[in-house]
């Protein structure tokens, strides 16, 4: 029988699809009965989504200018 602490350690195996059929069934059974663990899994997914949605930080304009200069040099060779 899985306990909540196990769920918090197995959640990545679960979302990555790296569980055997029976382990997956046991995990899902626990989720079905435990709203706190459902919330925990949602929060892990949310964390992952927020990372993906974080805006791309562009390099500083100095660095961009330097790289574009090198690009032009490369182009001309």
């Amino acid at each position: 029988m899985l306990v909540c602490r196990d769920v918090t350690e197995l959640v990545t195996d679960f979302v990555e699809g790296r569980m055997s059929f029976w382990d997956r069934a046991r995990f899902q059974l626990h989720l079905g009965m435990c709203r706190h663990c459902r919330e925990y899994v949602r929060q892990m997914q949310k964390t992952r989504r927020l990372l993906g949605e974080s805006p791309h930080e562009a390099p500083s304009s100095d660095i961009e200018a330097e790289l574009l200069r090198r690009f032009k040099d490369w182009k001309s060779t």
Partner: protein
Amino acid sequence: MKDSVEDDALVKRLLAGDEDAFRDLINAHHTNMVRLARSFVRNPATAEEVTQETWLQVLNGLDKFEGRSTLKSWIFSILANRARTRAVRDGRTVLFSDMSGEAGEGDPAVDPARFNAAGYWHLPPRPWDDLTPERLAASGQIGEQLTGAMDELPDAQRAVVMLRDVEGCSSEEACNVLGISETNQRVLLHRGRSRLRRLLEPLMELARDHCCREPCWYAAMSPSSSRTSWKVG
């Protein structure tokens, strides 16, 4: 498939000397490349230098890019190799294959005090509700805090989380770039994501408290609110 078509078009534009294409590419990846380089070489200036050298190597090797991997993972592989070589030369090694220092038994996903002796929740996670407009505004800050928190992760965890969750690489790509096993990659990803969730927790609670300052259902429920607000009908 979609990636390879887009990559093909991008490579053609770069080879034709299209400056906008190169600008888009550096805007999309440069900062994360520096971040990855810093997992190998500690010095920020060295990480920047390694990344700039990588761009040059990418351009020089572009005509040999065969599309067997995505352009993105090809670029990150070149970067990781350069950064690793540089770290060794500087007498520093990051052991991605040896996680004992970073993710051993002593790094549980959740503070053990939040479970009872049997391992069930004693202090369960409080719900992070769907974003309300107020919270959307706050989430700009959350994005910033998250980036800051990511920079605080142990080197190997940061590298994996950055490739997987920020750059959107597959686990296979992340393993190839970093030269680690799938199991190793998954443990590092788990430790990194769990740590970031822990860091987000108080921020998400704060965002919800902020919402509750507005007159809303939660406010009516709180014991401090006037009883008159309970009049029904």
